[in-house]
């Protein structure tokens, strides 16, 4: 792990739209973790959206424009990290596909894909970082595996390893942590009845664990679950894994 300021590798941080616009605190928590793992964090102002809304709605041209912009903004960094499996998967899998028939861009998209990671994957696997054990926190959590992170990027053990290293709080696995919560981007408003039914199954599984908080790595899923939990009058809270780890990991002032 690089230790002194001169040789620290630089991470280009892609905040994602939802963190940028809904939960800046998740962005600060994530940046703090990356810094604690020994990297310098740069947040390019020129970043916007990874293109998923267009890509998943069939607007390939709009998605290609978003992909080109992201490639241009982030290709100069040694590492690129996003606190979301589905946005990171755009960089890792879908940009190369979107730009595959574009001679000038394909290679650049592939190069970027090779150095982009989702946050906990980066911390646990690339940086080899482990949080210092924190004093046991009160309460217990359960972990929801968001679909893109899990199935497109293979993120399952990484967050659990980091949570275990932090020593607390207690993790109680739910039945089917890998089953979709029904968010699915625009899907959740295209088919609200199906989306809510999926959320209900997820929430039933969450509540059956008796955990106080459901933790995950994708803000889209978490906002969706939070919205349905609240509508059901449930007392279970939601938290992004970055917030959980940053809270148990030192001064908490890195970003401020």
């Amino acid at each position, binding site marked *: 792990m690089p230790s002194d300021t001169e040789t620290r590798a630089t991470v280009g941080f892609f*905040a994602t*739209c939802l*963190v*940028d*616009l*809904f*939960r*800046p*605190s998740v962005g*600060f928590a994530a*940046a703090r973790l990356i810094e604690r793992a020994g990297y310098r964090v740069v*947040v390019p*102002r*020129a*970043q*916007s*959206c990874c*293109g998923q*809304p*267009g890509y*998943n*709605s*069939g*607007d*390939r041209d*709009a998605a290609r*424009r*978003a992909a080109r*912009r992201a490639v241009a903004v982030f290709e100069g960094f040694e590492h690129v990290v996003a606190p979301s499996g589905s946005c990171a998967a755009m960089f890792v899998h879908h940009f190369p596909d979107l730009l595959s028939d574009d001679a000038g861009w394909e290679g650049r998209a592939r190069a970027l894909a090779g150095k982009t990671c989702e946050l906990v994957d980066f911390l646990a696997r690339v940086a080899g970082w482990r949080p210092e054990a924190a004093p046991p926190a009160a309460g217990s959590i359960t972990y929801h595996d968001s*679909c*893109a992170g899990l*199935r497109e990027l293979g993120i399952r053990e990484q967050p659990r390893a980091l949570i275990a290293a932090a020593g607390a709080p207690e993790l109680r696995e739910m039945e*089917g942590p*890998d*089953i*979709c919560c*029904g*968010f*699915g*981007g625009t*899907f959740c*408003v*295209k*088919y*609200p*009845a*199906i*989306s*809510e*039914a*999926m*959320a209900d*199954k997820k929430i039933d599984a969450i509540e059956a664990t008796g955990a106080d908080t459901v933790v995950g790595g994708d803000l889209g899923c978490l*906002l969706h679950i*939070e*919205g*349905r939990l*609240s*509508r059901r009058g449930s007392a279970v809270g939601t938290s992004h894994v970055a917030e959980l780890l940053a809270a148990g990991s030192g001064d908490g002032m890195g*970003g401020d």
Partner: protein
Amino acid sequence: MHADSARFPDNVTAARRDPMLLGALQRLQRDARAGRAEVIARLPEFEALRDAAREIRNGALANLAANLERFEENVIANGGAVHWCRDAAEAGAAVTRICREAGARTVAKGKSMVSEEIALNAALLGAGFDVVETDLGEYVLQLRDETPSHIVIPAIHLTKDQFAETFRDAHDALPEDRSLEEARAITDEARGALRDVFLRADVGITGANFLIAETGSVVIVTNEGNGDLAQSLPRTHIVVTGIEKALGTVEEALTLVRVLARSATGQEISAYTTFATGARRADDAAGPEAFHVVLVDNGRSDLLGGPKREILRCIRCGACQTVCPVYGAVGGHAYGAVYAGPVGSVLTPALSGLETAKHLPEASSFCGACEAVCPVRIPLPRLLRLWRQDAFQAHLGPTALRWGLFAWSALTAWPGAYRAAGAIGGRVLRLLAMGRPRLARLPFAGKWTGGRDLPVPEGGTFVGQWHRRRGK
């Protein structure tokens, strides 16, 4: 519930109000999850086997024309005949003609999804034949005038009690005091009724899981044994299947069978895996006098030549349906199509046109559970996305969504403006929320707030705050 993909949104509403259906789906998904985990745990090389299966299917599709020709030669050499049909109408006509020439009155059917695809029962009944489904589930569906809601478990939407009730209504000879409480009693009741059909039938119709070029054999994989009776007792056996089923060798079929049963029903192998090769020979103990294979194209050649060709690898195991959370929330009938679930949402637009089927590729959260279980590794979400692109290009989606995407795309080109607009939106939400963390109602956002509260943004943007705090 309407058998029309265009009605999908209405069908969803109806399905969500059907507690029997929802209970059946919940049990299906829970049991399948456990069953699959168990059967895979016992076969460490399962993932390698899936790779092999994918390659076998890719190879078979690459050589499809040659495999089909060789298959036909061998069927003819074994005393059978092959009928090539471009579409449902041609296939229905071919089967009707064969039945007529056989002087048939009763036709016993084994389970066949392609026969559903070409609406064969309607064609045969219309031509005056007595057609009886002999798979237990299919038989009950026929009595109830319903269609299959799952590829391998066609009556999964029905409970045991509904089976019993159906027999009480349909079987006049069933004594009122006979209990149909036990599953066993239900199967016995069906068996009794169907025994007669097998003995009476002049023609037996089955589907095919695989066709084998090197031998001219037809392979069916079943659990009830009814397919074997349908193809061996009547004088004439007709196989109705899609052209994409042809493989080169027996060896290939045996590998596919290993992933098929595990994926379909969580079994190591199905109860019956039967190879039928041609008509009965002089020294055969049993078998039909006449053997026909009706090969249906029905849009498959077009798929083969296009960007969605990978769907033709499908071996109809139904695993993607069973695992799909959308299928699990609405059941198969809501799709209004022969093939429901992820595989159906890729196939149906090809079979009945994107205009009618445009809702189906949208009915996915792209969670990828389907691709994760598909034994031949079909990238189902990617293929669904290709249909969404076709729909977008053909302007089939709602205009409001189009404008929304246009505005989003324009705005994201100007990151500063994008964030400023987002921050203003956030401020409005915060004002409306008046200090509460979530909004229960919001004009124009009813599709979200109808069933979910809307979490309110914290305020400001991350990128803006970061640069202010870090002074860059």
